[in-house]
């Protein structure tokens, strides 16, 4: 379980010129697509299934199974969507991939189109990522000029095009069904599932939607073979994963690590706590995540171990807090974030996120009332159970974990 990961996703970072297709091809670019064209869709899906790749946005759904479902889905046209609405606080790996290796994302989207039988891809990029959108646009233009995008590029009758769509600044739109609403020109409000996107996604048509990091894994998997990729990781998390370390670390950055890496190993990669200070807390998975109890510093970060503990890797966001931080102010900021970002469609989330903020405001001002922790837990349970989408379902997790971990503030019970 070495920390030094073979660089699959960041291999070209700082090496190849992200604005040059020639440079991309000189560093192994488009070999996976050539192979996919030669070997066919069944082979691609088989390799993905063998690889054990699961979605990197946080839901951990097996990618091979998703691609197979869209391929098998009845009706059309089918769509391929790149979910680049990366908005989870503390997450920036998608931005790094789009800015520094955009051709790999274009290549993976073309492979996806070929495999599931789609001629139209959309890259939905959060509105605040202007540079990432420009980098991807350059890559799309060059790929088109080189004959990788357009009519009949993948054989007679097999066309593929990619259109970039920029978001308007809304955290919720990273939730896949909200993203569909937003792409369709509506308020970015989520929809109930089922029906699932593989059968009824964008325009209620079969849709493959994958996170940027998930798609970035596809070319290396096809190049090295699914079995070899799986062997890189650990039981429960195959291959490598990107972790975004930020906050009080010496070298905040995105780090690639083998599945099974521990938080202590990640902290070492990032140079430890900044200024040699003492570690106080770790928020895993951003605002939608949980504060990780420090006794789990040496626990392998794999879903099968974390999930039973009520923890998750989520988007790969790892925010480090040293011993100077007021963790109750942090917790209140998380709650304020959700109250602002709740789309307001369903009651448990709209009202619950606001009640959460009010209780934490009381705590901040030293007016905490007895019973507040119990009230927050009850509220959190209702939000988690009854909200339509992942936002409301996760909006109480960090707050509830704060109540388990941090001493209650003065004035609180």
């Amino acid at each position, binding site marked *: 379980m070495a920390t030094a990961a073979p660089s699959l996703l960041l291999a070209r970072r700082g090496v190849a010129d992200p604005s040059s297709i020639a440079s991309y091809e000189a560093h192994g670019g488009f070999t996976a697509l050539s192979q996919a064209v030669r070997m066919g869709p069944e082979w691609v899906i088989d390799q993905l299934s063998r690889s054990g790749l699961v979605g990197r946005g946080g839901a951990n759904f097996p990618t091979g199974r998703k691609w197979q479902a869209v391929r098998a889905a009845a009706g059309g046209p089918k769509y391929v969507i790149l979910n680049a609405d990366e908005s989870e606080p*503390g997450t*920036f790996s*998608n931005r790094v991939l789009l800015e520094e290796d955009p051709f790999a994302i274009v290549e993976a989207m073309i492979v996806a189109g070929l495999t599931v039988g789609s001629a139209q891809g959309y890259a939905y990029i*959060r509105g605040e990522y202007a540079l990432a959108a420009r980098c991807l646009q350059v890559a799309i233009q060059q790929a088109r000029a080189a004959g990788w995008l357009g009519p009949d590029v993948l054989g007679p009758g097999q066309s593929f095009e990619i259109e970039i769509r920029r978001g308007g600044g*809304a955290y919720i739109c990273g939730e896949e069904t909200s993203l569909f609403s937003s792409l369709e020109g*509506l308020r970015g409000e989520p929809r109930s599932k089922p029906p699932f996107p593989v059968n009824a996604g964008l325009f209620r048509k079969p849709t493959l939607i994958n996170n940027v990091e998930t798609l970035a894994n596809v070319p290396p998997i096809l190049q090295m073979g699914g079995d070899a990729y799986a062997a890189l990781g650990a039981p429960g998390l195959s291959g490598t994963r990107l972790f975004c370390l930020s*906050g009080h670390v010496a070298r905040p950055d995105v780090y690639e690590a083998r599945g099974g890496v521990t938080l202590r190993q990640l902290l070492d990669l990032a140079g430890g706590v900044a200024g040699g200070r003492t570690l106080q807390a770790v928020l895993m998975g951003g605002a939608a995540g949980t504060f990780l109890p420090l006794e789990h510093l040496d626990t392998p970060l794999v879903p099968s171990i974390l999930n039973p503990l009520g923890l998750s890797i989520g988007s790969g966001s790892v925010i480090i807090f040293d011993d100077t*931080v007021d963790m109750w102010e942090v917790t209140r900021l998380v709650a304020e974030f959700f*109250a602002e970002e709740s789309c307001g469609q369903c009651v448990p989330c709209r009202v619950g996120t606001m009640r959460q903020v009010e209780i934490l405001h009381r705590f901040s001002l030293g007016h905490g009332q007895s019973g507040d922790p119990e009230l927050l837990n009850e509220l959190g349970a209702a939000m988690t159970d009854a909200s339509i989408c992942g936002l409301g379902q996760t909006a109480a997790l960090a707050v509830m974990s704060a109540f388990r971990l941090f001493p209650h503030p003065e004035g609180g019970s």
Partner: protein
Amino acid sequence: MTTPEARVDRGRASIQDEQPEVPEAAPTDAERAAADQALARFPDFRRDQLLPLLHAVHAETGWFSLELTRYLSQRLGVPFADLYGVISFYALFKTTPAARTVLRVCKGLPCYLHGAFALGEHLEALLGTAAEEPSADGVIGWEWFACLGQCEYAPAILVGEDVARRVTPESLEALVEEVRHGDRRS
């Protein structure tokens, strides 16, 4: 230093609703021109092209007045309430008069840990205007913004569409001067 009460109030103020009324008045000539120019780019407008169209209009006008929103709703055949609902849904679209260049101070947790609140307060003092309030000449304004995804470069500020990284009080002062004397757009 801001008092705890002020910080809590700031949290409250950012979570408020608006109640617009459909205006009678026509948009300004500039608004109409921006709308017409954007509409011309979508001759066979489909509803799924609404976000790209709104981006194109907003890039010119910097905000959606109710008059502009009403004009767009008539031209597109989209009900006013429906269109206003979409526009007001997105944080990057302004529904109050906005400065030509808006500085969006990231208040995400990594930026918070690197002094984002002090930075925002410094900016407020430099500009002499409250958050979301454009300068008298309409050149520059500022606001708080949710995590910008520039966490390894905290604290970060979105300047129009560009990102200022690892902002210090000194670099912020230089940035403000640059915006005041340059021709950046939001």
